[in-house]
């Protein structure tokens, strides 16, 4: 069980449709806090919403009631990359961080009355362990119990393309949790396929990949995905090259996202829910 973190207040810039009550401002009439229109009582026979001012002003002595937009539920969907590179353990266990992201989102979605779904994919989509988006009280617990048992294997995350077909047709809020060590162009084409959704790429990084690398010494690095071995003699010049490479990687991910109007959320080390909330408030650009 992870420690209690504040809820994530995600936010979308569009109105979700659907008749499931939730926290977002919807587009269908119903119980809500935003005035939609004023309608005759006979059209909407709810005397509690009686609009006195409009009724008094009406020369025809009709009785008017207010009609509101329904506060609709949103569908929050998390896509998790389960390729072998997600099993990397540096300062933090990368998959543990992915679990934290997914479970905190599950908790926050439930508290907001939103539907929550999880899809996992490595080289192939994991059909045994998927959670279709429903208002699911136990999604959080399900993730706590099963997430770490998922095998991190496969050389790429191509299975995520198969997941697209399983997603709802109407727009959802989609999080892609991955380290995005993908071939050039892969992220862009995935984002293209998800373009009618609101996509948040959650990029997981570890300080040992960027600036917390050992300064000097020799070692062998074992690529988790391809099994390739690399003899390295770490020294400041190589470390600088490494850091430059990682910065370039982040830049390429940002550029791929910018084209399709998304903004990557970068997690360095531990995941903090507050920083994701900040991201939705527009501070993290």
């Amino acid at each position, binding site marked *: 069980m992870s420690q209690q973190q504040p809820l994530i207040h995600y936010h979308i810039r569009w109105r979700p449709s659907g008749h499931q009550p939730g926290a977002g401002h919807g587009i269908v009439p119903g119980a809500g806090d935003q005035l939609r229109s004023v309608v005759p009582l006979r059209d909407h026979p709810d005397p509690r919403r009686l609009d006195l001012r409009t009724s008094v002003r009406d020369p025809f002595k009709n009785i008017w009631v207010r009609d509101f937009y329904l506060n609709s539920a949103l569908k929050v969907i998390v896509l998790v990359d389960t390729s072998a590179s997600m099993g990397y353990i540096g300062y933090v266990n990368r998959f543990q961080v992915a679990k934290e992201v997914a479970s905190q989102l599950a908790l926050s979605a439930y508290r907001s009355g939103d539907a929550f779904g999880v899809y996992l994919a490595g080289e192939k989509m994991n059909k045994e362990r998927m959670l279709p988006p429903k208002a699911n009280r136990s999604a959080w617990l399900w993730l706590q119990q099963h997430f770490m048992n998922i095998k991190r294997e496969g050389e790429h995350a191509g299975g995520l393309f198969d997941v697209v077909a399983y997603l709802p047709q109407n727009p959802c809020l989609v999080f892609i949790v991955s380290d995005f060590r993908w071939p050039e162009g892969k992220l862009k084409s995935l984002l293209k396929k998800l373009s009618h959704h609101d996509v948040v790429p959650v990029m997981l990084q570890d300080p*040992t*990949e960027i600036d917390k*690398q*050992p300064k000097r*010494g*020799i070692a062998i*690095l074992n690529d988790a995905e391809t099994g390739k071995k690399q003899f*390295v003699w770490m020294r400041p010049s190589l470390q600088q090259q490494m850091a430059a490479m990682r910065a370039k990687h982040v830049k390429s991910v940002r550029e791929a996202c910018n084209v399709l109007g998304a903004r990557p959320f970068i997690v360095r080390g531990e995941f903090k829910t507050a920083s994701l909330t900040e991201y939705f408030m527009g501070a993290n650009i």
Partner: protein
Amino acid sequence: MNALHFFKPDLLWLLPLCLLPLLSYGVKQFSYAGLEDWPKDRVSELLRWGVRIIAVLALASLVIASAAPFTEGGTISRIGKGAEIVIVLDRSGSMSESLEEQDPVERARGKMKISRIGAAREVLLKLMDQRPGDTFGVVVFNASPIAVAPLSADRELARAALKSAEANSSGFTAINRALEMGLDYFDDRPYTATRLILLVSDGDTKIKPEDEKILKQRFKDTQAQLMWIYVHTGYDFSLEYEEDISKEEGAVDPNVALNSLFRSMGMPYQAFEVNSESGLQRAVTEIGKATNKPTRYEYRLPRQDYAVYCYLLSMILLGILFWLKRIEIKAWRK
């Protein structure tokens, strides 16, 4: 160049073990998320092979060193100067008689002329002084031989041995055993100089046929030559009378017999008949001439041992490996 030999060649079967480092890197491995954008680093690539090659070489040189490689030193021809001279000095009773003819009356009065042994001693001491490059050993004998001074550079010892040699009658002269003891001195010594047994004796003894055989073999083994300084007074037979004596008397004088025996034994041999002090000195000069000839001899060089260099090499290589192990990254983090 000489061929390379191994003292323990069986250990070379361990050489395939040297390939072990090629199976694994021997460096700590870390799982890493992705190496697809790892910068190409030529130095690391070189070091990757370098580490394994160094490990292979270190093991190989250790195995080879433990098999103890060496080359035979071979032999070189050298020219030795000087001589190794073993003085075999007779101190039997007869040696105390005077060297030159003396009137028995005067002798009874106690007016002794110099004795044979005394004259021999003085001349031998002079010989030692004249020949500083030689090595001397001393054996004295009457009834049995005594090894007085070993063949060594310690001249004072040989000198003292000669000075202390006094004639003493014990009725029997063990010349063959004395010669054998003198020859024993040459055992276990490299043959680097002329070997000379300088027998100073007045003879009067016999060598049995079985002893003769042994002596002959010993002279052959040690490659020594024999010089006999036959100290005698005018009364005694000259060694050259051999023919006549044997014909007329039917019995052979023991000294003549001894002379012919030595001559027949095959080693270089010279006899000097000396019946005066000056004669003795002449003999010594002759000896000097005979032994001054340079000796050509084969010198066996010690074999060359290469294990030390192999160990040194493996020490250096292991040192490098040790250093590499020290700079190895223990945990992939700062």
